[in-house]
């Protein structure tokens, strides 16, 4: 295991970038780059990170950095990796940092193709549960009930009507060497997974829960607290899938009956994006979380041998 204290002082994603205060993605990227080191090439699609990570002629990246378009993170990263191999740099790590829209929605085809081909790249999805760069629009990864600018809290329809898409399970279905979920609120778990994935070969996918204070209507100083509450309520399960085996790394508190002990209401009430939700909607979401938790446990059991 590695902890935040084991990381080098030097930032390869430097200060001076223009992320919002409390940006979960910025916390992730800064620390991840310390794990990865200088022998790394980074690809980002069109997302917040593209914009806050550098505006010509300035960039925060101290490693080679590339952008082509929105929906092709996995395939461009794979193109870089194969070309590095051809130019005598086979040991260089190639990392794609994409958001949930660029992964769960528009980037899904390229992601699935690269996973099926077992391209030798590390794909990191920072999941802030909406298209934040374009101004908070619904994505496949937005949770049920959430307000976004395309799922407004209207008089008839209040928030998103569908549930969050489970991308990590889609990636497991591709039977790639490594799939993990993590959170910026659990840095030791996160950094350990990044370190492990860095040293593996083949297609690796890590989905990191990354609070967006601006889009979630949360005060910046609550970024970590909200992320922690997501895990405690079962809204976000932290696990890894390696060599065909799945393990839940951080388990939420359960009551004496084995049910989730902390209700989702505790998570929802911290965030403006859920403020409008009716009792009925909260119950619908609680039922979904209960079922999801049972399914995660069942998957862990099924994939433990």
């Amino acid at each position, binding site marked *: 295991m590695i902890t935040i204290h084991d990381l080098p002082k030097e930032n390869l994603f430097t200060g001076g970038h223009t992320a919002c205060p409390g940006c979960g993605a910025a916390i992730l990227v800064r620390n991840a780059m310390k794990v990865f080191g*200088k*022998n*790394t*090439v980074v*690809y980002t699609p069109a997302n917040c990170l*593209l*914009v806050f990570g*550098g*505006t*010509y*002629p300035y*960039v925060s*990246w*101290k*490693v*080679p*950095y*590339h*952008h*082509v*378009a929105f*929906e*092709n993170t996995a*395939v*461009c*990263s*794979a*193109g*870089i990796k*194969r*070309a*590095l*191999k*051809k*130019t005598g*740099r086979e040991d*260089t790590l190639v990392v794609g940092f994409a958001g949930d829209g660029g992964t769960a929605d528009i980037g899904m*085809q*390229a992601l*699935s*193709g690269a996973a*099926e*081909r077992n391209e030798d790249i590390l794909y990191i999805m920072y999941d802030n549960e909406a298209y934040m760069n374009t101004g908070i629009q619904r994505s496949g990864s937005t949770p049920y009930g959430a307000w976004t600018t395309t799922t407004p809290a209207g008089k008839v329809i209040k928030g998103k009507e569908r549930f969050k898409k489970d991308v990590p399970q889609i990636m497991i279905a591709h039977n790639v060497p490594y799939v993990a979920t993590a959170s910026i609120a659990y840095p030791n778990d996160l950094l350990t997974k990044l370190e492990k994935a860095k040293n593996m070969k083949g297609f690796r996918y890590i989905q990191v829960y990354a609070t967006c204070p601006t889009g979630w209507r949360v005060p910046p100083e609550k970024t970590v607290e909200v992320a922690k509450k997501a895990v405690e309520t079962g809204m976000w399960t932290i696990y890894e899938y390696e060599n065909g085996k799945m393990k839940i790394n951080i388990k939420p508190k359960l009551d004496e009956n084995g049910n989730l002990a902390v209700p989702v209401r505790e998570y929802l009430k911290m965030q403006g994006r859920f403020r409008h939700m009716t009792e009925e909607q909260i119950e619908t979401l609680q039922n979904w979380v209960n079922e999801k938790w049972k399914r995660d446990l069942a998957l862990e059991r099924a994939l433990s041998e």
Partner: protein
Amino acid sequence: MVERRLVSGNYAAAYGALRARVQFVAAYPITPQTFIVEHISEFVNDGIMDAEFMRVESEHSAISATVSAEATGARSFTATASQGLALMHEILAIPAPLRLPIVMPVVNRTVAAPIGIWAEYNDVMPQRDLGWMMMFVEDNQEVFDMIIQGYRIAEDKRVLLPFMPNLDAFILSHTYEPVEFPDQEDIDDFLPPYKAEHAHLWPDDPMAIGVFTPPEYIQEFRYQTEQAMQAAKKVIKEVNDEFAKKFGRDYHGLIEEFMTDDAEAVLITLGTVTSTARKVVMDMRKEGKKVGLVKLRFLRPFPKDELRKIAEKVDAIGVYDKSISYSAGGPAFVEVRNALYGMEKPVIGYLAGLGGRDVRYSDVRLMFEKTLEAAKSGKAEKELVWIGTRGVQP
């Protein structure tokens, strides 16, 4: 020793990639391009082509991977046609401003609707404004030669732009013709390995390629890309002349003129219809009719000065198009007429062979006859002439 074999246009393109010592290939099938990537698959699996070969899941991914591989510093190649080219459109805008010298042959095929698989230029014409050098070949030898020349031109430090040779669906892609393949040693001598000094993704020399850019800087990117495209005109001619000297085949650069010196009327053609037009010119000359032919090889960079020189010596100009920009005319016609602005010479646009319909000897002959009439009368009866269309008088 020079090898002479009977091959298809698609084989000539694939073999061109092999002989150019391409380091990275992204492949996705589409009729009528598929044989290019099939041949490359065979070369790679038989161990005669040493390239990273990525069998991707769409044309959008094919061009994406090719752009990123080229940005990393590897000589990169892909190929497509029709709907595939249309799907690539977004990414086609990337390599020119990033100055990435990719070579990508396009097998020209109609774009739906209606869906079809035969030769039309409505796939390539919508891609004109994205900074690719675009040229049209006449035969399979030219396919091979322009892959080799393409890398040499594209990688020239004065240019550094992507290069797109266009070949007609089936008429070239699936038709076998004798093609000469020079010695690898001679090709290596003509086309040295790519040195990615200006753009690479190497941790030993970090660089950011594709950075978010505000209006304070984008206009300069556009200007520099335009300067590079203008510079390409000279480089194309230089490379042509060096190739001609070394390998004995002279394509004359941006355009090729045929019997234009004392011509009263000339027809400007793109692609394989040029061969038919040569025959028509020879026959009409025998009849004492002073016609000539201009093979418009490059649409980008556009040979404006060369065309104006020709227009000075003739009385009327016809332009053949295999696609239409609705309400504006055939794209080549529109561009030629624009280049000749202020010259007061009749310019007539001819549309034929759309959707892959055969363009027959008699169709081409009609284009020459009509242009010659305009040369004699000093004015064009019609600006746009549809040839071989049901219910439409040409």
